[in-house]
């Protein structure tokens, strides 16, 4: 075989391999509702890596903006960032597998809840005012002391520890060596407690770490009425906002905190992040109201050396800082060598609780999944009929050459889908229509080439020369027309919103894929064809 053809084939094989690879169903983590506890848990699902848009899957689409009706909001970009932080904190409450929370433009927040059916509930979650509070952690270890009693209570209720060799007892965590610590402590306490076997002592008083996969279990145990009654009076349990990795495993922090907040977000005036000029560490500075300052200085004076958890909407944000001295109206939280980004995030949390952004819903769409399914069904049928028509026209008119073009068309479909999957774009209804349409456009390139080859043949050129010149001469028109269409699509993407963008994306990917398949793949097929039949005098075109 010709070396040129072999190289071309390798490239095509590589592209096909890459495309198939990006389309193979894979394990993805999804958060789903646990039927038993009604809370969220992580599961791994095997599925095609193409995201279906809300219009195809059904669900609720909310667009929110900062309410400016009661007077202008000076910095709406900041307000919407705070709102995003708040909504993200509540993400578990949505109860959908992949909630989309994103800022659009400067001042709009998009929340998409696939599969959610109750718009009223979704709206109440999104629009609820954020609640920020500072609470002292369990300095005396009251909760830890109560653990054996809770374990006993659970055992009496018939709840068994999971697995005989579960790492047991409250284990000290030093660095990442959890297994060693667990084994050591397992030797100490030979009767593993149901709850205590799942908790590892954290670095701070009142801080516990729970392996990420055990989180839903612990959460459900914690909320049993017989357990809540055994939690020491004046104490409450709060989860950390994010999972954190220690060593190789991911943990979720659980904090035992005092039930009474020393101060709430109402008293906060402002908060910002900066870099300390002396120590060069990241610092969050905050300012309290007059009333808040009095209260705060009383409380901090009594709690010097204690740890203070910052809780937004019931979730502890970051690691609780230690109180070093009495703090009045102006305070600062030192994050040491942590990146400034973390300080900015914490400042955002404080501001989110301090100045709840009033949000109004500017767009709400509840799309039933059945409607989505109908739409998919119809569009797929339309697509199949459209493709069949294209095949009939192409093969009928161009015979063997048309068949080669159709073969390349299957690769075109593969490339386009792979492009969508590779870049993580979501397939929407307008996108689907654009996909069907771009099949027609993909054919255009081949039509241009074939017509050129025919012209060259009419002009009396030999087969091989006609094919080469046909591809060459058609190239200008194909490139110019496709580039200008891509430019238009890019502008659509940059300027447009949701559905228009979805359309533009499929169009761009479709055009790129069509250039590869219609020019490169078809030319390779032609070269192979001519190579196999060197004695061929007439071209089936």
């Amino acid at each position, binding site marked *: 075989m010709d070396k040129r053809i072999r190289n071309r084939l390798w490239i095509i094989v590589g592209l096909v391999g890459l495309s198939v690879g990006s389309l193979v169903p894979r394990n993805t983590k999804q958060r789903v509702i646990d039927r038993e506890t009604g809370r969220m848990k992580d599961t791994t699902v095997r599925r095609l890596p193409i995201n279906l848009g809300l219009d195809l899957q059904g669900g609720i689409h909310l667009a929110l903006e900062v309410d400016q009706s009661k007077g202008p909001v000076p910095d709406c970009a900041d307000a919407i960032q705070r709102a995003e932080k708040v909504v993200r904190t509540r993400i578990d409450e949505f109860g959908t597998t992949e909630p989309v929370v994103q800022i659009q433009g400067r001042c709009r927040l998009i929340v998409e809840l696939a599969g959610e059916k109750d*718009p009223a509930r979704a709206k109440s979650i999104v629009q609820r005012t954020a609640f920020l509070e500072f609470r002292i952690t369990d300095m005396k270890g009251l909760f830890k002391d109560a653990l054996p009693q809770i374990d006993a209570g659970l055992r009496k209720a018939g709840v068994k520890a999971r697995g005989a060799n579960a790492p047991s007892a409250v284990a000290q965590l030093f660095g990442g060596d959890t297994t060693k610590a667990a084994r050591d402590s397992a030797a100490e306490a030979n009767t593993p407690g149901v709850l205590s076997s799942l908790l590892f002592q954290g670095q701070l008083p009142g801080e516990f770490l729970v392996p990420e996969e055990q989180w839903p279990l612990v959460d459900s145990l914690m909320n049993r009425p017989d357990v809540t009654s055994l939690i020491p009076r004046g104490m409450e349990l709060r989860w950390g906002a994010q999972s954190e990795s220690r060593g190789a495993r991911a943990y979720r922090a659980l904090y035992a905190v005092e039930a009474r907040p020393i101060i709430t977000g109402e008293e906060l005036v402002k908060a910002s992040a900066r870099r300390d000029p002396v120590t060069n560490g990241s610092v969050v500075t905050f300012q309290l109201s007059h009333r808040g300052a009095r209260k705060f200085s009383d409380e901090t004076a009594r709690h010097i050396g204690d740890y203070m958890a910052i809780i937004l909407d019931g979730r502890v944000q970051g690691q609780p800082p230690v109180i070093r001295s009495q703090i009045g109206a102006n305070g600062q939280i030192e994050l040491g060598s942590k990146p400034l980004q973390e300080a900015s995030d914490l400042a955002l949390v404080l501001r989110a609780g301090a100045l709840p952004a009033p949000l*109004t*819903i*500017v*767009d*709400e*769409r509840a799309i*039933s999944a*059945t*409607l989505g399914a*109908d*739409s998919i069904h*119809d*569009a797929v049928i*339309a697509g199949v*009929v*459209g*493709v069949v*028509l294209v095949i009939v*026209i192409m093969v*009928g*008119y*161009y*015979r063997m050459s048309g068949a080669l073009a159709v073969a390349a068309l299957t690769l075109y479909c593969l490339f386009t889908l792979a492009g969508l999957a590779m870049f993580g774009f979501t397939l929407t*209804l*307008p996108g689907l*229509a654009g996909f*069907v*349409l771009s099949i*027609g*456009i993909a*054919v*255009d390139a081949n*039509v*241009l080439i074939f017509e050129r080859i*025919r012209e060259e*043949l009419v*002009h*009396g050129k030999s087969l091989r020369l006609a094919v080469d010149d046909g591809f060459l001469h058609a190239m200008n*028109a194909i490139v110019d*027309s*496709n580039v*200008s*269409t891509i*430019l*238009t*699509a890019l*502008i*659509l993407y940059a*300027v*447009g*919103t949701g*559905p*228009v963008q979805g*359309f533009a994306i499929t*169009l761009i990917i479709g055009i790129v894929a069509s250039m590869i398949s219609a020019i490169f793949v078809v030319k390779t097929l032609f070269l192979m064809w001519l190579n196999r039949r060197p004695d061929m*005098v*007439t*071209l089936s*075109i």
Partner: protein
Amino acid sequence: MIRLFANANYDFIKWRRVAFSLTGGIMLIGAIFLATRGLNYSIEFTGGTSVQFEVAHRVETGKIRAALDQVGLRGADIYNFGSDTSYQVRARLGANASEGDAGTQAVADSVARALDQSVGQGQYQIAQRQSVGPKVGRELQGKALLAILVSFLVTLIYLAVRFEWRFGLAAVVATAHDIVATIAFISVMHLEVSLVVVGAVLTVVGYSLNDTIIIFDRVRENLRKYRRQNLYEILNLSINETLPRSVLTHGTTIATTLSLLILGGEVIRPFAWVMSFGIFTGTFSSIYIAAPVLLWIEKRWPGEDARGARAFGSRPATTPSAPAAPAMSSQPRTPQPTR
């Protein structure tokens, strides 16, 4: 092999005045419709509430309308949506209703109440409820206009680099024609202007541009090849030479959009209408707007380079009805390969 329109030799440019009056007439009708009826903006643009529901048994539209009037939703639009038993009720927010959440809820509740009365409780199922402030749509209007203007500018620059500014200007004029014609079509057909339809209009822009460039590419090539002929002849020759391609490509594209139109379902039907018309007008404008406008621009501002000065003489020397296509007729022909 089958060859459609091979060696075609039509004088397209001769019909430019007829074409101009035809398209002018369509635009005039469109303008009248726009002025009197305006565009049928979807709820995304006007703001309000749209409720889709399915009823168990067929109900008279009049009955639903009467019930809606009773609960205070006067002038609400009622559409049959797909089948006999699925409806869409569209109500814009009243003047005194609060925009956004509360107003939407009120309208949706009113629709439910009206359905309870006219259809009976449990006899209907609400499939979709949409409520929007008009803001999203209004913003999109502005954005779509901006997108079109920016894309014109980019097209002008790109074509000025790849071809010549005259070609760019002619292509943009043709594309602008397509936008106006498509809006006229939308108005006459009373299609609902939704976000997706706006997307379709923007695609028509791309498609039409595509088609114009294919012909202009041939013009560019023929200008270099046939130095004797004037632009009038070159334009005709180029359109004729690309005719087989035009027929094939538009045939396949029309096939896909028609299948979308007929089978694609209610949701994308307006989109498919606009696309189908857009392909038609895009093809029309590439031949009858872009080429004559290029001719006119060249007459007005003759090219200064040697090629331009030569190419843009006045009327063709030969009679317009039979422009010479020497390359095609004088070349010796190979025996037609057949299968």
